[in-house]
């Protein structure tokens, strides 16, 4: 029986025994997609990133602070909005779509609303539910408090995508709280995003390269690595525009690109100049940003793209959103089962008295499942609690599934590498370490776990063979 099945069975028992509302919810949650919260300081570009990830203009965005209520975007048969109130009741709310963005008529003061749920038919949302949160460090303290409570106190999210513009002390505090709350912190369910990457270094055309550099530095920062091991630079605006670019917008850009070079330089000098005197251009600017306009103009002018579809693809490619999707699928979705099980078991711990047979069952799953062992080791490794030489640490991180749960990713193999051979080699190597008399106890325990991982890969190979 796999991990998720065992957790399900245990929760079924618990629900039958207690009929606790929270447990029923937790049980239901096991069958739903992974819940990923998008968090960050205000105006970090959370809603924009959400739109880019879904590939549809859904969450409203604005120059000022915009998202004030935690909003869930989940897959559903048709568009629908439900508003959940503080007292736990839910009511369907009417909504209008303004330029695609869902504008919800709350019908009551925002304070009474606990969260909103937007159902959207979307294949992407079938893989994970995305949760848009209000910005932390907002001047309206209650808005920030909502995010903190939601993500950190209630354990509502299985994972978090954290948006940084630059690394502030407040970001680290938030991530620390995320790891501290929600039942046993690990660094395995947080993915960092260096957002608004297009604006780094003054929207010049090399912005994404500069952003890459900054992100690299964050990735190697010891304090941050402990909290979220990867930081991906993403230009959310570009990604959202790439997914939703319209023919009219392309024509507008093509017109600009067709002008003489000197004209273009003057026009693209500042956002103000580009927007001056044309409502259409102003709209375009809020949609793709100054960097997007500059980049598109250059691409069209140089003949790299010739139509709207081509430009959309080019924008998406440069936005870094594809890379983020890859990272998400490796780091979060690949681990969805264990993350979901973890959340469910945490709820179980919270609702049941310690020492009861059911709680003991939870403990048993946690102690026995190799997935949990891997998760725990990975966390210890990254937090520096387990000290290893650098190259060995990188290998161990990878084998434990730090860069993706697939066999090739774990073994660090190219497409054509021989998985069986590599797995056998890894198994032998770590087995030796586990048995070496000079290894200390922590290392031996860890090495044994890694050996087991390698054995698991081998077993999987044999089954396929």
């Amino acid at each position: 029986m796999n991990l998720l099945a065992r957790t399900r069975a245990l929760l079924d028992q618990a629900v039958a025994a207690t009929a606790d509302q929270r447990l029923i919810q937790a049980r239901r949650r096991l069958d739903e997609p992974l819940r990923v919260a998008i968090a960050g300081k205000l105006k970090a570009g959370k809603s924009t990133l959400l739109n880019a990830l879904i590939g549809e203009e859904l969450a409203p965005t604005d120059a000022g602070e915009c998202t004030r209520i935690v909003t869930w975007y989940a897959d559903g048969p048709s568009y629908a909005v439900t508003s959940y109130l503080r007292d736990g009741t839910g009511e369907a709310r009417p909504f209008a779509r303004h330029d695609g963005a869902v504008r919800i008529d709350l019908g009551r003061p925002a304070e009474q609303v606990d969260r909103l749920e937007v159902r959207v038919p979307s294949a992407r949302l079938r893989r994970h539910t995305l949760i848009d949160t209000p910005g932390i460090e907002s001047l309206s303290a209650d808005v920030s408090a909502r995010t903190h409570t939601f993500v950190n106190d209630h354990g509502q999210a299985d994972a978090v995508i954290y948006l940084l513009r630059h690394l502030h002390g407040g970001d680290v505090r938030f991530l620390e709280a995320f790891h501290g709350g929600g039942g046993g912190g690990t660094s395995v369910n947080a993915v960092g995003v260096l957002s608004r990457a297009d604006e780094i270094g003054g929207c010049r055309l090399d912005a994404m390269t500069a952003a890459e550099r900054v992100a690299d530095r964050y990735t190697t920062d010891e304090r941050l690595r402990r909290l979220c091991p990867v930081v991906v630079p993403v230009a959310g605006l570009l990604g959202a525009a790439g997914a939703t670019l319209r023919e009219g917008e392309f024509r507008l850009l093509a017109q600009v690109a067709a002008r003489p070079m000197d004209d273009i330089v003057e026009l693209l000098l500042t956002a103000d100049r580009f927007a001056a005197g044309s409502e259409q251009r102003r709209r375009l600017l809020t949609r793709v940003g100054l960097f997007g306009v500059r980049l598109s103009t250059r691409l069209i002018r140089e003949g790299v793209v010739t139509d709207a579809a081509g430009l959309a693809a080019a924008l998406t490619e440069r936005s870094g959103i594809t890379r983020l999707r890859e990272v998400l699928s490796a780091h979060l979705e690949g681990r969805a089962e264990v993350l979901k099980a973890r959340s469910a078991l945490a709820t179980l711990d919270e609702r049941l008295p310690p020492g009861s047979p059911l709680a003991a069952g939870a403990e048993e799953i946690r102690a026995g499942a190799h997935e949990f062992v891997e998760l725990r080791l990975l966390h210890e490794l990254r937090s520096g609690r387990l000290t290893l030489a650098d190259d060995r640490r990188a290998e161990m991180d990878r084998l434990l599934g730090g860069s993706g749960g697939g066999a090739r990713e774990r073994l660090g193999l190219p497409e054509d590498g021989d998985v069986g051979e590599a797995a056998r080699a890894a198994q032998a190597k770590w087995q030796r370490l586990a048995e070496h008399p000079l290894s200390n106890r922590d290392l031996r325990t860890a090495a044994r776990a890694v050996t087991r991982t390698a054995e698991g890969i081998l077993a999987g190979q044999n089954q396929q063979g």
Partner: protein
Amino acid sequence: MLARLSAAGRIATGAGRADLAERLRHAATRLEQGGDVAVAVVGEFKQGKSTLINALLRTDLCPVDADIVTALPTILRFGRPPSAALIADHETPIEFGDVAKHITGDSGQEARAVEIRIDRRLLGAGLAVVDTPGVGGLDSAQGNLTLATLTTAGAALFVTDAAQELTAPEVEFLRRTVERCPRTFLVLTKTDLHVEWRRIAELNQGHLRRLGLDLPVVPVSSFLRMRAQARDDTALNAESGFPRLVDLLRTEVIDTAAADRLAAARDELAFVAAQLRERLDAEAAAALDPQVTAGYAERSRRSAALQHGTWQVVLQDGIQDLAADVDHDLRERLRLLIRQGEELLAESDPRQTWQDFQAWAAREAARAAADNLMLLVTRAEQLAAEVAERFGMEAHDLSATLPALPMSAGKARPIELTFGKSGMAQFLGAFTAARVAYGGFYLLGAVGALFSVAWAAPLGLLAGVTLGRRLVKAEKERQVQQRRAQAGQELRRYVDEVGFHVGRDSRESVRRTQRLLRDEFATRARELARSAQAAEAAVREVAALGEQERQHRAAALHEQRRRIDRLAS
């Protein structure tokens, strides 16, 4: 004003009062040269502070990069020929090529600031621009050091970019900025990149209103300004928004400072004029009534005692109180720091949290030092006011024994004019926060030095082999305890060191304050005494003259007094 000062100086020399002439010369020098008004550029990191300064001063000396940040405060002053220096315990000249390396902290050299002297009109007009490390990052001890800088700055530019409205931490920092430096402007940078910057400016203005802060918001684009400079394009420069900023700096900062200096010079002139007039008044009084001699003699006797008057007592007691309070405040803050630090340590294993903990300790220590400096400055200003008040009262009492001068109005300028409100301001004009905290900005440099700890190696291999599982667990716990104890010791040592450096610097400041106030008022007391003696001598001389000559003399004096009055008005 300079002409009037020198004219008054000639009269004083003519009257045999070299001391008063000296005072006027000093006033003239201060008026002419002034000191640079420091404008601190502050804000969170990556908001474009260094770029703003580069654009403002048409230079590229402040390093700008998408990733690297300013690590050392950089002071830009007027200087010809251009030069740069690294300021640590003493100044070391450095090459311009190395400036960036030092500012970003890559040179590996311990320093407190970088000073750059360049030839720019704005700087020549009496401005010193200070680029500060951004606050809000992981190592935000910087923020507190920046706050300390603000205590001595004449104005501050609070920089935030147009990408978003103000955040809660920014507003908190802004509040503390305005507390220390009331003349603060909010500069909204990067308006070229964000089409909605007008909205952001409005939103920010709204936030400021709600906070009850009335600061001008100046939107600028450094990029346009630099481009305008490269092409000599006035229209583009106007578009950049910088003309308004320069204008604000000129009118609100430089001109206000100049006006302050002028007012101080005028006060000095009034003081001297009153001293000079005193003798003339006395002669005039004696010419009318030879009986006043006794009154003047009494006054002269008493004025000699002014040097050791009760203001000395106020100063002595005040300084002692101040020193004790400042010292106690620092101790209290540091004690609190240790207590909080120990609480933090008790919650964690120092081996994992050490880096964060170091950053925390540095930040809190810097905050303690900055707040302590703030206390020192405000208390010193209070004390100066008290001493000035007492001195004024005593000086006023001197004349109490004098008979009311039976003269027509306008001629009998009562002496209290000098010691009225304007007199208080006059003493205090020379006594500004900047002088108390002279070097206060560097005061905190020493706090930067941090500790590194070599942790005991994790459970050794021997233990791994021989100890049983339970023993290993106990051993691990013991090691965590040991690390906590070690970290606690390190913390106390560090705080001790901070206390030593900050305490030494603040005691130095207290001594400087005392000396400054004592010298200032003792000099004035001497001058008053000399005036009183001169008046007494004059009165005696006039009293000895015949009736006819007295009348004659009175007429001659009249003209002299008119001249002095004209100068001092």
